[in-house]
Structure formats: C-alpha cells, structure tokens
C-alpha cells in the first residue's frame, strides 16, 4: 500500500471547478446568441458556425499531433474560438471564409504561440481581423434578417449612420430604422435592436440572447462584471457626450445596442488568457476598450471598432498587469 501513496506539496484538496468545466460553461453561455443568429439570418448562419467549428477542432488536433502534445480539442477552448469567430462574421460569407479564419485563429494566433494560456491575442478576434484585412468585400456584405423582403444588399445601422448611405446602396428597411430613430425614439425601435432585428454579424445582433449567456456566467462566477461594465459604460458615456448634434445629446442607447459591443464586452474582453489578471487591471482594460471603440467609430474609416479595440488592449495587457499589482497584505501607512 505504501508504494501507492501520493506525496506532494499541500494543499491536498482541489476545487471541482476545473478549467474544462469553465470552458464548456462558456460554450453553453454562447449558445443562445448563436441560436438567435440562426433564427434571424436563416440556415446560412448555421453553415458558417458549423464550418468554423469543425475547422477549429481539426486544426487544433492536427497541430497538437504534429507538436507531439496531448490532444485536448475537447477541453472546450477551441470550441469557444470556433464559435466566436463564426459569431463575428456576416451570415452570407462564402463557405471557405470561416474555414480560413478559423484555421488562422487556431494555427497562427493560438498554437504558434504555444497553445492554451500562451496566446497574446484573442484568437477569434485576430482571425476576424485577418479576414477583414484580406477579404474586406466579403466581410462587409450584410444580409438583413430573413423576414425582410429587400434582400439585395444591406448595411449595419452603424455603417448607415457613418457613411450617410442613401437608399440605393443600403437596404431600405435599415434606413427606415435609422430615420425612425432620428424622428422618434420609440420603444419599438430600441426593442428591434435589442432583439436583433437588424443586419450584422451572426452572434452580435441579439443582445437579449447574449445577456442570457452573460448572466449565467456572472452567476457562476466564471466572468466578472468589471470589464464588461466599464467597457459598455465608457462607450455609452462617450457616445452620449460626443456623438450627438451638440455635446451631451448623443443617442447612447443606440450606440451601445448596435455593433458588436455586448458580444465583445461579455465574451471577448473577458477572455482569461488575453486580459489583465487583477480587478483594477480589468477595469482599466474595459475603459481602454471603450475609449478605443469610440475613437474608431468616430474618427476612423470603419463604422465599428469593438474587435480592434479589444485586440489593441490585448497588446497592452502585460503593461497593465505590471502597474496594477495588488497592494500586498501588511503595507499600512505608519501613523504618527
């Protein structure tokens, strides 16, 4: 019997919350947004999700095999990457696009840096950035929800606003939506945005579904509110101040409900690996993301900036970590 005794350093008991359980919980939390996406955009969205997932799993397995590592494709982490990449694509992209993006995300952004825990950038977002840079046309060709009739071409609400698109270029419905907003702040308008009745990426449109998943993760303690809150708050605040006709007149609700803000804030800015370690750091991370998103939306050529802002803040994570160390126990101001 004595030969079978394990001798190791304390502690000898461990929590049952393993990372595999956490990862699969995140996958579970992501499902509502995907289901909503398929419901809104039809089966083409499902096709994108499935192709992205399968490519992610295969890429991870092949690379781990080549690196003579244990194959860990079922730990859930590359499921998350596959799902998130698909969620960040328009529903009507050609079939090979999610495949290329997923491959890039797993092979270059994750595995080339050493696999789980060692990547600097969020794989799904870096994959999306790669696709956007390489095939900008495919990446900005939007489809409206499948129940609208004018399926010729469409644009996201943010793009319509940014480029002042005329009816000829963009879907009439969306122009209608934005115009409606300008004239009357009706509940039904925000309700449409909240439920996802607009053009956009597969997983970003239905805020309700995203919040469902987010509340589950917050309840389980797998993500903290610090980053999402400071991110969304900053975007909302800056939009309110600067994006209206005159200071403090911006339609902040419109700006936080459109684009990929909720998806990014709750599922990508909370990624453990690529964000700061401490609470203070995470709040700063969210603030930075918010400011960058605002700057991109206002001043750059892109209508949307959530994914770039998170990627840029990913790069800033080590330096945030360096300056946000917790104050250790036992350092007190000496009273005279």
């Amino acid at each position: 019997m004595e030969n079978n005794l394990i001798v190791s350093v304390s502690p000898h008991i461990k929590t049952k919350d393993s990372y595999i359980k956490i990862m699969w919980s995140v996958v579970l939390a992501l499902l509502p947004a995907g289901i909503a996406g398929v419901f809104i955009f039809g089966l083409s969205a499902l096709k994108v999700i499935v192709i992205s997932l399968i490519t992610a799993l295969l890429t991870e397995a092949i690379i781990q095999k080549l690196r003579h590592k244990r194959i860990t494709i079922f730990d859930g982490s590359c499921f998350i990457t596959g799902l998130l990449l698909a969620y960040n694509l328009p529903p009507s992209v050609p079939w090979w696009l999610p495949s290329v993006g997923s491959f890039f995300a797993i092979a270059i952004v994750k595995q080339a840096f050493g696999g789980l825990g060692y990547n600097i950038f969020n794989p799904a977002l870096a994959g999306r950035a790669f696709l956007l840079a390489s095939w900008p046309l495919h990446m900005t060709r939007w489809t409206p929800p499948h129940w609208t009739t004018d399926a010729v071409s469409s644009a996201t609400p943010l793009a319509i606003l940014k480029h002042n698109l005329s009816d000829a270029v963009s879907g009439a419905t969306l122009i209608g939506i934005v115009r409606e907003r300008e004239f009357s702040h009706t509940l039904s308008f925000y309700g449409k945005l909240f439920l996802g009745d607009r053009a956009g990426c597969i997983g970003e449109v239905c805020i309700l579904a995203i919040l469902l998943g987010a509340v589950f993760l917050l309840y389980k303690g797998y993500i903290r509110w610090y980053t999402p809150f400071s991110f969304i708050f900053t975007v909302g605040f800056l939009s309110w101040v600067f994006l209206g006709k005159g200071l403090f007149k911006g339609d902040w609700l419109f700006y936080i409900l459109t684009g990929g803000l909720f998806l990014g804030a709750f599922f990508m800015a909370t990624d453990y690996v690529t964000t700061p370690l401490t609470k203070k750091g995470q709040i700063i991370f969210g603030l930075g993301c918010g400011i960058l998103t605002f700057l991109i939306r206002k001043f750059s050529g892109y209508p949307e900036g959530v994914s770039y802002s998170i990627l840029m803040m990913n790069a800033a994570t080590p330096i945030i970590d360096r300056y946000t160390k917790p104050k250790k126990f036992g350092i007190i101001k000496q009273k005279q």
Partner: protein
Amino acid sequence: MFLRNKFSGGIHPPTYKELTQNCPIEEIPPPQKVVIPLIQHIGGPCLPLVKSGEEVKLGQKIGSSDKYISSPVHASLAGKVSHIEDFNHPVLGKSPAIFIERGQDSYTNAISQKDPTGLSPEELKKIIQEAGIVGLGGAGFPTHVKLSPPKPIEVLILNAAECEPYLTCDERLLCEKPSEILKGLEIIIKIISPQEIFLGIEDNKEEAIGILKNTLQAMGLTNKIKMVILKTKYPQGGEKQLIKAITGKEVPSGGLPFDVGVLVQNVQTAFAIYEAVYKGKPLYERVITVSGKAIKKRGNFKVRIGTLVSEIVEFCGGFIENPKKIIFGGPMMGIAQWSLEVPVIKGTSGILFLSEEELNFEEPGPCIRCGRCIEVCPAKIMPASIALAGEYKRWNIVPQYHPLDCIECGACSYICPTRRDLVQFIKLAKQYGK
C-alpha cells in the same frame, strides 16, 4: 459577541467536519512502543538525557537543549529506552528519535505542583518551558518564548477558528473542557497582562459557541473575554488573518504579531498550559482528529506523542479502501507522508487518510490567467505571476511579486482551475528569488 472586519481573499472549501464533529474525544490506549523525535519545535534540537537500556517513567524529561529557543521532550510511555537513532519524522523527513518500549506503569511529576494563584509570571513561564509546551496549532514555536514578547502586548487572542477542513479536535476540546481551556487562557493573561482579550471562533461550531458562552458566564468572565464569532472562511485561523478580522490591524509585511501589540494562542496550547500549571503534567499527549474517507473509524482521539500512525490505523480498525494520501495536519497545509511508520508529534493536529475521490487529483495544466489565485490570496500577492516566472526559472523577476509574504495557506492552488502547483512554485521562489 460580534462580527468584525473581514480579511480579504479566502476560499470556502467543503469542510468535511461533519465526519468527526460529533465524535467525543476518545483515548487511544498506550501503545507497545513510542518513538519520540528530538526535534518537535522551531529552535535548537534536543539532546537525549537518557541512554539506551535505561528505564523511564511516564512524563520524565528525556531530551532537552541549553538553547533558550527550544523545548524539552518527555517520555509518553513508562518503560525502557530501547535505542536512540534517526527515524521518520512527519515534518522534517528524518530526525534523531528516542525509542521507548512499554514496561511497568509508573509516573513522575516532571513539574513540581504549586498553587497557581500565587505564582509570578516568570515562574509560570518556567513551568510552561519545563512542560515542553509549543504552539499546538502546527507551527511548534516554543510557547515560553512567545510569551516573552519584546514589545508590550495590548491584545490577546485565543484562536479557536480551526479553519482547516476535516479537523475538529480543537472544537471537541472546547466542547468537553471549556473551563480548563479558559483557566489556561487566564494563566496566559496573567503572564502578559493584555488590555483586551478575544476568543475567535468560526460560526460553524455552534455547539462549542453555546458551551463557551455558558462557561464564560459561569466563570464570570463575560466582560473580560470577548467572544468573536467569525465567518467560516479559510484561512480564518491564519494568525495574520485572524488579527485582521478581529482587531482590524495588519501585521506589517515581514513582521510578527507583537509588532502590532497582539499575541495569538491556540486552544490546545491553552489547554496544555492548564494541565502543566494545575496538574504538573508535561506535554506528552494531545488530541488529534483522525478522518478521511479511507479509514474505518474516524474521530477525535487523545494520543500519546510518539505513537506511530500504524498503531492508530490498527486502533481505528484499518482501512475501508487504500488511502491515496496520508496527511499530517489539515488538507490545506498538512504534510503528505510516504509511510505508516511515522510518529505523532506535538504539532500534529490531525491525521487524514484521503481516498482517491476526495483528492480530486488531476495533472496540472497551463496557466489560463483567470486571476482567481489573486482574488483568493489572503496575503494579496500574485501567485499566478510567481508560478509563470518559476516555470521558466526566471527567479530574478520574482521578488517584485513578494513571494516572502506568502503564508502558504494553499488557497491559490485549491482554486486553480488548471490545478497548478502554485504553492510549490512560491516555496521555490522563496528559496531562489533573491
């Protein structure tokens, strides 16, 4: 009775106290053989005062040192010294030890018994020193040294938190010997004359809290000794955390409790002081918890120091299943053993026989930077960063993360979702990170 400031961090592991919480203290009959290690404390090792073949009486001093920071050892069995040689030690691995074989029962009062009310603090300290009393919470620092602080003590705390999972020996002793423990506490009060006295206990020990309340009332100590009921949270019983929770003071980094005018004593230490002063009995037995799902009979047992684990296993009726780990102390800070031939020492608060299921053992994985270890760290350092640096042997960058402030409570390793051995990396960092 009130709740005070919490310490930050901490975890809520399953306590498993229900396994032994209601088991009254039972005495394990003296074994045929005991092995008394000559080092059972922090400080100078003892030299044997007896030779092999010599007859010894129960309670006879058999090892001592001329160093001030040291503590003598006593025979826990009447009989014959069979030999003196190096033997397994639960903490140090190996240490010189005195082997005693059981013979005719005989007892000697190693300490002359006097009326405790008339004794001066110095005389009391002498008795505590002669009785071989060390901190029985586990660290084993000689108590007479701890009771001679270089700075005046304002606050005395009796540590009845017992925050380690599984362990219930302090709790049972509080239920069964409350007045003795309080008398021991009064002796400590007499020695250091503090202005305020607290008794810190976790709120999961309802029976003990009730009994203590009544005893305090019966002894007329309610105004003198304030009972503080603390939230059940690990490591609530850690010395610095307990002080923070009760007084709101933070022991400075690198400092000791007396730096903020506080002294903490463990329940069993107070009981040992009572026995030494009132009964003239040196420390040759103590109460331990035997628990874990692999052992047949679990409970709280009074055992002689030097009893081998194999004897205790036999008394407890053997194993239900083969244990995967045998631990001296609690599961969070205890020390894993590789053999059953290990003696109980003064600082042993429990022996756990853990099954595979309880261990929940998995291979460690990569750090996913979730930051949970930082959230739960009561010392507020960054275990993840220390471990990452340690993984690449970059010990030169480790000091900025303050590994020396780690109290090795194990909360970080417990919570780590990829099962990283964070405590191990921090222990290495303490050694190399300079």
